[in-house]
Every structure is written in C-alpha cells, then in structure tokens.
C-alpha cells in the first residue's frame, strides 16, 4: 500500500511541475552563489559557500515544501480520493502517516539530487571539497524540508479552498522567515541574564533557527568551546538534541493535528 501511495505521489508530483520548479530553483540559486564566489579573487572555503547556499535555500525551500505538503493533502480531499482510501479500511492515522512518508520519499530525493547537481561546479570554486560538510548540509536541508512538508500537510488537512490555502501558506512562510525574527529582535534589548534560557527556548522553537544552529555547529561556524557565560546559557542543549526535539515537535504536532482535524471533520463521510 505504501509503495502504491509513493507511486501515486510521484505521478502527481511529476505532473504538477513542482518537481521542475524545485530542482531548477535549487540548481540555479546554488550556481548563482557559486558564480559570485568564483569571480572573487580571494580564497573561499567550502563551508562559507555552504552557509550561503543554505541562507539562499531558506528563502524558498520551506515555501515549496509547505506548498507541496498542503496541496497534496488538499487534493486528496477535493478529488474525493481520501474517502475512497478510508473506505478500504485504512485509518486516518495510517493515511496521514503514509501520506507523509510518501511525500518524504518523493520530495527529498529530488532536492538531494538537485543539490548534488548544483554543487558540481563547487570543485572549481572552493579550495577543497569535504564530503562530510556537504553531507551535513544535505541532512540539514532534508530535516528543514520534512518539517515544512508536515506543516503543509496540516494546512492541507484544515483547508480545501485554493486561495485560502495559498494565503495561509504565504502567511506561515512570512511568519517563519521574517515575523518570528522581528519579534525576537525587538525582545532582544530587554533580555537579561535570567531570561536567556527562555529566549533560547523560544529561539530554537523556530525550525529555521534549530536547523541553522545544527548546521553551523557541525560546520564549525559556531564553536561551542570557550563560550562566555551568556552563550553557555543560550546554547544549553547540544545541536543534535535541539534539532531532534524541534523536528519531532513540529512533525509530530503537525501530523497529530492533521489526524485529529480530519477525524473531527469526518472526511470519510463527505
């Protein structure tokens, strides 16, 4: 059954052109970064390039992943395939989980291959290439995409109307990219030593912050040794724990809520 769902997702993904948009955006944006570094007459380390590619990806990858998750779920309702699947004895839990896994199985290899293609010219730009650094980057990107895909799934479960869905997706995207940071930036001046822990928890609730923190520590951009007391308190948990906690929280919350809301609306009797 899971394989059938994956095959179905693949067909829909392929037909929707989202595949092309995603792959082209990844490759072109990464090449754009590489090109800019390539023309500089100064040495550039791979991790510097990876950080820039990540920062660029943050603009569009969460958006695409959310769109993909949301529309895929909304279509199940609009085309009435969901009631049919449920009529075959599959529970809501099974459906949502299989849906998430099948989306994951299609979207993630696509972006992985796109990033690998994107990094082909990297050899000519950077002094040396480290497989570990690139692998960490890919892993981080995948976690980020998975979280936003789950959020998209939730949005698609709640809303079926196309325009409302687009509006909500853009709202969510703006919130995570801009609004949360702006709020934190205005909170920042009043953060005393006693508040650092609370500030840290709120900061790391954002999937973008959690994934970025994990990536930067793994790339040695942030070093956690010899930190001041302030930073010691801020980075109170290991990057792995922060990442896992954030991913489990958002994915778990989104999938759990999707199941709950679908059940409550009782889509099987639509």
């Amino acid at each position, binding site marked *: 059954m899971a394989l059938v769902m994956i095959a179905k997702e693949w067909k829909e993904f392929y037909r929707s052109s989202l595949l092309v948009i995603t792959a082209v955006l990844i490759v072109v944006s990464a090449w754009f*970064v590489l090109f*800019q570094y390539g023309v*500089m007459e100064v*040495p550039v380390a791979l991790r510097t390039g990876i950080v820039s590619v990540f920062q660029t990806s943050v*603009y569009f990858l969460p958006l695409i992943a959310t769109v993909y998750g949301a529309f895929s779920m909304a279509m199940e309702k609009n085309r009435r395939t969901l009631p049919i699947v449920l009529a075959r004895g599959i529970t809501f839990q099974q459906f949502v989980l299989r849906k998430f896994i099948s989306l994951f199985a299609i979207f993630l290899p696509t972006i992985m291959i796109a990033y690998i293609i994107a990094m082909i010219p990297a050899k000519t730009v950077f002094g040396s290439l480290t497989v570990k650094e690139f692998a960490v980057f890919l892993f981080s990107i995948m976690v980020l995409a998975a979280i936003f895909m789950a959020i998209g799934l939730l949005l698609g479960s709640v809303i079926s109307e196309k325009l409302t869905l687009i509006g909500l997706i853009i709202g969510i995207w703006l919130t995570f990219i801009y609004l949360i940071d702006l709020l934190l*930036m205005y909170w920042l001046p009043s*953060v005393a030593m006693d508040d650092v822990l609370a500030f840290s928890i709120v900061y790391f609730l954002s999937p973008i912050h959690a994934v970025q923190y994990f990536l930067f520590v793994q790339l040695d951009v942030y070093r956690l040794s010899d930190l001041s007391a302030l930073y010691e308190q801020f980075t109170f948990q290991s990057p792995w724990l922060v990442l896992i906690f954030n991913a489990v929280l958002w994915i778990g919350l989104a999938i759990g809520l999707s199941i709950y809301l679908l059940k409550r609306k009782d889509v099987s009797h639509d």
Partner: protein
Amino acid sequence: MRKQLAAIFVIVGFAFICFPRSAMADEQASIQELLETAEPGESIQLENHVYHEDVVIDKPVTIKGAENTVIHGTGDGNVVTLNHDGITLENVTVKNSGSILDYDYAGIKIYSNDNRVIDTTIEDSLHGIYLSENTGNELIGNTIIGNQQLTQSSRGNGIHLFHSSDNIIRNNTIDGARDGVYFSFSEDNQVDRNRITNHRYGLHYMYSDDNTFHQNEFFENTGGAAIMYSDNITLTGNQFYDHHNLQSFGILLQTANDATIENNQIHFNQKGIFMDQSNRNFFKGNVITNNQIGLDVWNSSINNQFTGNHILENNLQYTTNDGEDDNEWSVQGTGNAWSDHNVIDLDEDGTADNAYVHTSAFGEVLSEQPLGVLFLHSPALTIYEKWNELIGKEKGTIQDPNPIHVQRETASIASFGLWIMVLTAGIVGFIYWRKKRQQRRG
C-alpha cells in the same frame, strides 16, 4: 623448511636478548655527543634517524637533518634548546616536548641571538618555537602543528615571542596551536608570508610596538589578529578570512594606536574589524567584504582615518556601541567605497558628489546584547533596519563626505531573495505558458 624457520627464530630471538634496542641505538651517536666533539662553526649532518633525546646547543654550529631526521624529546622539557648565538638548525622534525604550560616548554626554545631555524617541522609539542629575551633570529619555512591531544586552551602557541626583537618570521605554516603567533613585549619584528590557521587567535599581540606584518594569511581561527596595548604596528597585504564564530573577528584593535593598516583583504568574518580604545590608526585600501559586520568601531576609538577602503556587502556595514563618531572617513578628499551607497558622480571624477551617511539601529542592540549576532544571518535584519530608519530610531551615524566608486567582486547574499523571487516568477510563468500551449494543441 621447518628446521630452517626454527633456526631463524632462535637466532633473531638470541639477538634481541643480547642486543636490546637501547644498546643498538648506541651505535648511532646522539646529537648531544656529536655537539660535544664539534668545533664552533662546524656543520653537523644528522642521519635519517629518530634521535630520542632533548638537545641543548651551546656553541655556534649548523645542524642539518636528512630527509627523515626526527628529534624525539623525552617529554619532560624543551626538545631543542638554543643557548648560544649564531646557531643554524635546518630540516629536522622535532617532537614531544613537555606539556606543562607554567614552564613554557617548546619544541625549539631559543634563548640566544642571531640564530636561524629553517625548514623544520614541529609536532606534539607545547609551544612550537619560543623566542625568549633575544634578538635577530630568523624563523623561515617551518611547519608547526599544535598538539591535538591537548584541548586548545591547554596547548602552547605556534611561535611565541617574549621580549624578543628584530626577528624575521617568514614563510612558516602554523596549524592548530592555541595562538598562531604570540607577541609579548617584542619590538621591531618582521612577520611575512606566513599561513596561520585553526587557532584561538591567529595573531595574539600584547605590549609590542613597531612590528610589521606583510602578506600573511590568517584563516579559520576563532579570531584573526588580536592586537592589544601596542603602538605603531604595520599590517599590509595580509588576508584575514573565514573567522565565523559568534565572537570572531578578522582584526581586533584593543588599545592599539598609530597602526598603519593598508591593502589587507578582510572577508567572511563575523566582524571584519573591531576597534575599542584605539586611536589615530590609518586604514587605507583595505577590502572589507562579506563579513557579518564590516566595521565595529566603538566610540572610545577616535581620530582614526579611513581612506580608499572598499567596504562591501557586509550584512551590517558599520556598527558602534553608542555616542558620536569622531573618526575621519575621508582623507585628502578621498573617502571609501560603500556597496550600500547610490553614487552620483556627475563630473565623473571617481568620487561621488553625494556623501555617504550610514546609520544602524541594530548596531546599538548588538552593542548592548551580544546575542544579537544570532540575527546577522536573518532575512529580517534588512526589514528591521529599514523600519527603524523610517521611524527615525536609528543611531550610530557616520558620514563619508567623499565616497568613491565600488569595484564589485563580492557575493551579495542579501539580494538573493529578490533574485529568487524573480526566478520563481519566471519559472511559474514558463510552466503556465507551456500548459496553455499544450491545452490549445490538445
């Protein structure tokens, strides 16, 4: 066959019992023994051999290693100690000094003058080369690798100068020590073309005046060059890059005055240049690009001059802590190139007709709250700055009356968002057009 093998084992075993390792090594004279018989001015050629000893050289000789000569110290002190003027040590690998920081043990410790240490490799030692209260030494082409078995704060420095003057430190590669080159009370030294990476500070510099740093490469350290409590330093043609940590910098000037900082490349650092209580320094022709913060000049630093610098595509071009800026941003009619300045140059003389004025609201937040650095990567930073500019809350104003044209060769991460949106619109448009065409055909 079995009998022959058994005979070989018996003979080899007998040899090991009768001639233990130390006795066999005795056939090879130790370096100390060679030194005892050497005349001043003599050249001693070492063999492809691992010498297990600490060596004290107290006469003016030349010691040359072969391709694989290793001096492996006892681990209880300095491996090689130079106690006489005019010694040359060349082409040896030095390993295993003592590791007690209080005693400042080193791979090569130099107490005398006018010595030359050339093409050596120093590993597994506390300090690499330690110059103590001396003058006129030359350290050229050495490779120093910090002891990776110790934590960074427990390691020594790559090259350590203490009350040491008029030395030449050239073409050395220093990797993974505590600080790359450490200066303390050392003057008139020339430091050229060294590659210094993976330390706490690439250059750590205290109470040392009149030194020159030329064409060195500092990269991937926690901090590039920390220059403190020193005057009349000259930094020309150096590269400071990839210092990304939360509190990192390319160049830090703390109570450093009258320095000349010219034609350096400072890029991909957390802060390009950070200055506190540093006055009358002269910055010319430096390229300060793609740092999180280009220049962080605290108001305790005054009468500094900036001319002909290219300050481009830093997430924040300039920040300060508070108060009025009292530095000169143009010297003899030549200001600096700023990537966030829309140059109007009607007379096409290369100097803009409109002044560059910079303000930053987030700079003030940063000076009060160090956690602000977490948002230097944030897409929201530009919005925050623009919004505060609109409501007139920005602070930390500087004015460059004669900004010059930008020579672009930098990567602008901030403009990617716009590019990507344009690109997305283009792709979506293309797909829409393709579908429409297919529908028409269908």
